[in-house]
């Protein structure tokens, strides 16, 4: 009976989403305050019923209710509690339910701060988010209902996909969805601004913290996914250019561009139409990502649940949402005038270059992701586009971007001073280059590691400019503790995020250039040597987990005769699905990861063992953590908290009474 309550709550949430869409949007168009007032309570009610529905599904997982088809497909009586809780989003139906729940959470967050916004604008924003929710709830109710029962009730469930039975999977999907769905706020703010005809600096000011918040979650989500793939898929790579990864990376790229173009829109009232288009594009790419992952048009290592029937539904929905918003854009944007002028060397021009590079990079990723589909659709055969394409196209676009990233914050708005900038660039660039070369020499890496040298140089360049930028601002205030406290958090946030990119460059550069791996046949007692470390296979023994049996190997790693790590990789067989899984083991460190995976048993009691040496690979995720932290600092900037009372907006030219 409780299951049916969950279903019923979902239906009620759907009806409330309809109310949340129709009344506020109609009320805003007809200027009826009573209708617009529906927005906030409807948003809260929707969240309440969605949480109830989600709670019921969780209850079904926890209580092993295998009469629910979805539970039977994704759980098992031996599944540990933590994976029963996360198994709720382990399949298609539940993950879409999580998607809507998070959307509803963001809507309520907007509704809670809606008093800062003009009434009609707030009503429109909440109404647009309601419309997105209507689409997804209809999708769940009509094609992907997680509450469908089955009779006869199976004795036991089919277990959760073993790939997802991992601590990394506990937090990765919610974070990623927080990011994906978070961009719906920027989308709704842009659409509402287009609908209402107010597209000004105030709109940009409201959009900025929401965009940065979504970007922060997406950054964390992508980083966690990358880390999960690194150790769970057992290939030792940290980025595969897989369609599903690309699906999350494209909104990240355009979202990053949006953050920067909104800065111009807010500070200088420029790039308005462009910022709107980026806001629409970023959320559209999030929806496209959902479509690509859920419809099965692309094969991917991550595609866990695909179904063409559902794909058509999402495609129609995608067309309505994105097509509708772009039509609105084509209708309204021509009237937007950005009346700013700026010199060829100015903060604006550098941010414009930043935007062009990021959008071109996103387009390149989109092209590579969809190219196999296009070729197949035109009947030209089946092919796949791999890392060689992406690395060839992507890396050259990123290098100039990072050069600009160092310079940008130092250049003045409107008109930068070229001579001074060139002097600073020399004073930072030359020592950075020297330091990079020194690193190569000190660590005995030779001169010919060009890409590594460039990565290190750009990383030091970025760090140097950030330190210089902070020092310059502090210097004007005499470096006192008060001066530290007076600088806005947004300023620190920006430099922290840029420094995160630098750490990422160091990690990615070093690991790409110096990683080593070796696949060897090892019998117990034998050892192999890799990058100065001796990996000795001590023994292999059977163990039993809650829902799997496994062979575990004990590998002792030593360096110069001293033991540094004990690795216990496993070869698991999940008993219910009869699925074999390689559980890698790694010893993480700031300077290097040591990583071992157990392959297949070989004749004579030996095993095939794969060992990796991954220098500084942690820096990649440390860098992303720093980027996210920078985002967090920026959204807690006090000017957003103080923005409440100072609502000033000017109507868009020619839009009054339109």
């Amino acid at each position, binding site marked *: 009976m409780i299951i049916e309550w969950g279903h019923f709550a979902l239906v009620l949430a759907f009806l409330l989403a309809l109310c949340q869409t129709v009344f506020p949007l109609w009320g805003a168009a007809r200027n009826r305050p009573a209708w617009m007032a529906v927005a906030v309570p409807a948003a809260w009610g929707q969240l309440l019923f969605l949480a109830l529905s989600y709670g019921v599904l969780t209850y079904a997982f926890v209580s092993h209710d295998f009469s629910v088809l979805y539970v039977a497909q994704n759980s098992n009586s031996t599944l540990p509690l933590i994976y029963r809780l996360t198994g709720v989003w382990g399949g298609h139906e539940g993950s879409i339910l999580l998607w809507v729940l998070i959307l509803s959470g963001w809507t309520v967050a907007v509704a809670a701060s809606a008093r800062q916004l003009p009434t009609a604008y707030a009503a429109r924003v909440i109404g647009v988010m309601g419309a997105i929710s209507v689409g997804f709830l209809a999708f769940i109710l009509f094609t992907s209902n997680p509450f469908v029962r089955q009779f006869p009730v199976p004795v036991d469930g089919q277990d959760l996909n073993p790939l997802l039975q991992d601590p990394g999977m506990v937090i990765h999907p919610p974070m990623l969805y927080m990011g994906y769905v978070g961009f719906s706020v920027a989308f709704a703010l842009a659409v509402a601004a287009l609908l209402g005809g107010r597209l000004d600096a105030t709109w940009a000011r409201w959009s900025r913290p929401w965009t940065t918040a979504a970007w922060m979650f997406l950054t964390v989500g992508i980083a966690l996914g990358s880390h999960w793939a690194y150790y769970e898929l057992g290939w030792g790579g940290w980025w595969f250019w897989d369609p599903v990864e690309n699906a999350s990376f494209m909104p990240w790229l355009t979202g990053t561009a949006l953050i920067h173009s909104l800065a111009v829109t807010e500070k200088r009232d420029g790039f308005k139409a462009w910022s709107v288009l980026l806001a629409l594009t970023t959320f559209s790419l999030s929806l496209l990502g959902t479509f690509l992952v859920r419809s*099965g*048009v692309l094969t991917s290592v991550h595609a866990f649940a695909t179904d*063409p029937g559902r794909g058509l539904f999402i495609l129609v929905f995608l067309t309505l949402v994105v*097509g509708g918003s772009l039509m609105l854009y*084509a209708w309204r944007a021509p009237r937007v005038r950005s009346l700013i002028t700026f010199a060829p060397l100015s903060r604006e021009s550098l941010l414009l270059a930043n935007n062009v590079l990021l959008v071109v990079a996103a387009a390149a990723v989109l092209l590579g992701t969809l190219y196999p*589909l*296009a070729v197949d659709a035109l009947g030209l055969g089946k092919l796949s586009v791999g890392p060689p394409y992406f690395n060839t196209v992507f890396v050259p676009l990123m290098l100039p971007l990072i050069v600009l990233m160092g310079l940008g914050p130092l250049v003045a708005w409107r008109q930068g001073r070229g001579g001074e900038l060139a002097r600073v660039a020399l004073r930072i660039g030359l020592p950075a280059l020297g330091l990079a070369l020194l690193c190569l020499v000190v660590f005995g890496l030779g001169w010919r590691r060009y890409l590594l040298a460039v990565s290190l140089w750009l990383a030091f360049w970025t760090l140097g400019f950030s330190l210089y930028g902070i020092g310059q601002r502090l210097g004007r205030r005499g470096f006192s503790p008060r001066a530290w406290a007076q600088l806005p958090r947004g300023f620190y946030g920006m430099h922290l995020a840029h420094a995160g990119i630098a750490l990422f460059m160091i990690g990615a550069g070093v690991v790409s250039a110096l990683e080593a791996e070796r696949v060897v046949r090892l019998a117990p007692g034998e050892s192999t040597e890799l990058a100065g470390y001796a990996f000795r296979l001590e023994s292999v023994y059977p163990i039993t987990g809650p829902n799997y049996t496994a062979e575990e190997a004990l590998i002792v790693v030593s360096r110069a005769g001293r033991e540094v790590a004990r690795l216990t990789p496993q070869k698991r067989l999940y008993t219910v699905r*009869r699925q074999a899984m390689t559980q890698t083991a790694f010893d993480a460190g700031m300077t290097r990861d040591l990583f071992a995976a157990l392959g297949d048993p070989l004749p004579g009691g030996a095993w095939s063992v794969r060992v990796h040496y991954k220098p500084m690979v942690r820096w990649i995720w440390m860098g992303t953590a720093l980027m996210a932290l920078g985002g967090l600092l920026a959204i807690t900037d006090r000017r957003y908290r103080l923005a409440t009372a100072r609502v000033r907006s000017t109507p868009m030219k020619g839009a009054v009474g339109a």
Partner: protein
Amino acid sequence: MMRFLLPLGAFLLLVALLYVGLGLNPREVPSPLVGRPAPAFVLPTLADPERRISEQDLAVAPVTLLNVWASWCAACVEEHPVLSAWVKRRGLPLVGLNYKDDSEQARAWLARFGNPFRDIAVDRDGRVGIDWGVYGVPETFVIDRAGIIRYKHIGPLTPQVIVEKLDPLIDALQQAGGAP
């Protein structure tokens, strides 16, 4: 005005591409075996390990079906009632290939769900499965009187697949092969 319509135009092109893409199946791997003779094998039967069955036994009727299954395969349970009802309705000879399975568990599975198979070959280590290009369990092969593989379905049979693909093919084969 025109330049503001560009994003919309680009998006509509993308939608058209995705719509065509939906009709394609990236999992549809063309099987090189279709149209070729069934790969040779000699395997013990599940009912009596002393008795052998070979690919010759598949070329005795106008149409013979070979279904690859295993007791550990969840989708086989799902497929089982559809497959059983269909072969019973059409009176088709169905041979099973018990793939990488424990024979005791396979017998228990048949005892529990029912046995629609005329005969079952035991492919304990999956060698024959490799020759037959088994991609995932379950799979169903349609073989004609000449021992040629005419069709291969990957994944559980559904009523839709039977009505749209298999029934017309089997009608044609039975008409052609009814009088050899």
